[in-house]
């Protein structure tokens, strides 16, 4: 990290910038207007230009991240949501990649139990898509012959590694169908109440979504959460544990499981994470 330049900290600058931010987002500042040169245009109008720009930048970034939610809500309602959300959860960074992270929770706080509650799950699904888009790359392909070479007494301790872009979503509404309709350019209708699970992941051609069977979800969630093979298998219903082989082949072949770690073998570390 660079040596701290805050030794030359400018308290007047800090106060000015704090007031500016408070004025733009919350219209709260004590002495800011008196520090703005009027020069033919009063301070309120000058500050309003910056407020409009800050709102517009934030809303456009949110629209890009949540196109299905935008289609469901309509532009006017979405813009209104964007502004109230921005004031509640302002951008925490100099890039806009993460500004939507809290939107699903924010919607849940406001829509739980209401007619539009399905929008929370639309937002959750779209945020999964966003995370998949920016996740690390992985070029590793799990070789089943290498896996088969693990001694039987050590196999229970194997920990599988999912592709970094994999997201697993449980929803109470049929948002997969809604998302698919939007992708196909069809009109979006409010999602009906139905329990479903969705796998989100990035392939070479883009982000792909698919519905998951309950058994697949249980097992992949356990793997995602770091369970050993023995623990992940134990998470399955007793009558389904003989499905392990099929599960393994299915998700290795699909590239969802990309690696494994076992006693004496470390998973290959890939990606370009910080």
């Amino acid at each position: 990290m660079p040596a701290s330049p805050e030794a030359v900290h400018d308290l007047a600058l800090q106060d000015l910038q704090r007031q500016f931010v408070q004025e733009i987002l919350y219209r709260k500042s004590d002495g800011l207007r008196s520090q703005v040169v009027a020069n033919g245009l009063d301070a309120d109008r000058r500050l309003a230009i910056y407020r409009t720009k800050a709102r517009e930048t934030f809303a456009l970034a949110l629209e890009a991240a949540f196109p299905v939610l935008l289609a469901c809500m309509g532009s006017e309602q979405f813009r209104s949501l964007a502004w109230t959300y921005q004031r509640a959860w302002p951008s925490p960074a100099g890039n806009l990649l993460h500004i939507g992270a809290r939107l699903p929770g924010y919607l849940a706080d406001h829509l739980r139990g209401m007619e539009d509650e399905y929008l929370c799950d639309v937002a959750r699904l779209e945020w999964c898509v966003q995370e998949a888009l920016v996740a690390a790359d992985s070029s590793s392909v799990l070789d089943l012959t290498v896996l088969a070479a693990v001694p039987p007494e050590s196999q229970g301790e194997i920990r599988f590694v999912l592709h970094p872009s994999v997201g697993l979503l449980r929803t109470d509404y049929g948002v997969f169908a809604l998302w698919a309709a939007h992708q196909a350019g069809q009109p979006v209708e409010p999602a009906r109440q139905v329990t479903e699970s969705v796998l989100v992941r990035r392939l070479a051609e883009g982000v792909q979504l698919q519905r998951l069977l309950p058994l697949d979800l249980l097992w992949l969630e356990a793997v995602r959460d770091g369970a050993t093979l023995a623990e992940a298998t134990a998470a399955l219903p007793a009558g389904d544990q003989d499905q392990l082989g099929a599960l393994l082949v299915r998700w290795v072949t699909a590239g969802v499981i990309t690696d494994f770690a076992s006693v004496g073998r470390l998973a290959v570390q890939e990606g370009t994470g910080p």
Partner: protein
Amino acid sequence: MPATASRPIPAQAGIGLRSPHHNEFLARRPNVPWVEVHSENFFADGGRQLQVLDAVRRDYGVSLHGVGLSLGGSDPLDPEHLRRLRRLVQRVEPALVSEHVCWGSADGIFLNDLLPMPYTESALRHLAARVSAVQEFLGRQILVENVSSYLEFDGAEMTEWDFLVQLARRAGCGILLDVNNIYVSAENHGFPAHNYLLGIPAELVGEIHLAGHTAVDGVLIDTHSAPVTDAVWALYREAVQLLGPVPTLIEWDAELPTLERLMAEATRADEQASVQASVQASVQASLARRGNGEAAHARVA
């Protein structure tokens, strides 16, 4: 990970490469010497965007242009932002890296905008220390760009261009001179754009930006959503006359035109610079023939 540096950037016009043009750009490989991208759009850990940039850098000069570091902010520099920027710089090995003379956050709240500095000695010291720290962290020089502004703070102790030049001298950085931003701010605040150009030493300028702006209720807004205006082209010709040939970028970020249209705007920038250079050479030759010893310093009206 790329093994060689991206191509150098010549004193010709390049284009801002935005994601809606990525596929067409890679398919057509247009005849443009260099491109500039916004650094923050490539802060992801992986994915398509980075793959596109890897492919582009093999055949084109690349400039990384940051918009979110908040160099003039009073919050500490964001270590995560710096780490991601350094990782990108190491991956792309760009010919140019640039940021803005502005701030963008306070108390951890980011407005994701290019906000104006007060032009005071104290703010200059603060900013120069941070630019130096960033250059040290990245292990290379950066360029800093003047921004368009819609307000000025009371108590200015120097002009904007003096502030910019002093910053470059103290921090050892270069200047990315945005000619459209000079025009926009000059119109909004009532100072002569010509004076701004005269105040910038040629040796400090590493790049020029050109873009379109929009008039809203009597105020010029730097929207990057339109062609460069005639007035800004005129100011650009004056800049080329004063500074000499400089890598020049056409920025267009909103209401994005076709790639063809963007390329045409870059061609126009090259033509404007070329015309200015030939007029200047012609005048100098004429004066030299008359034995005027001051010919080399002649200024074309």
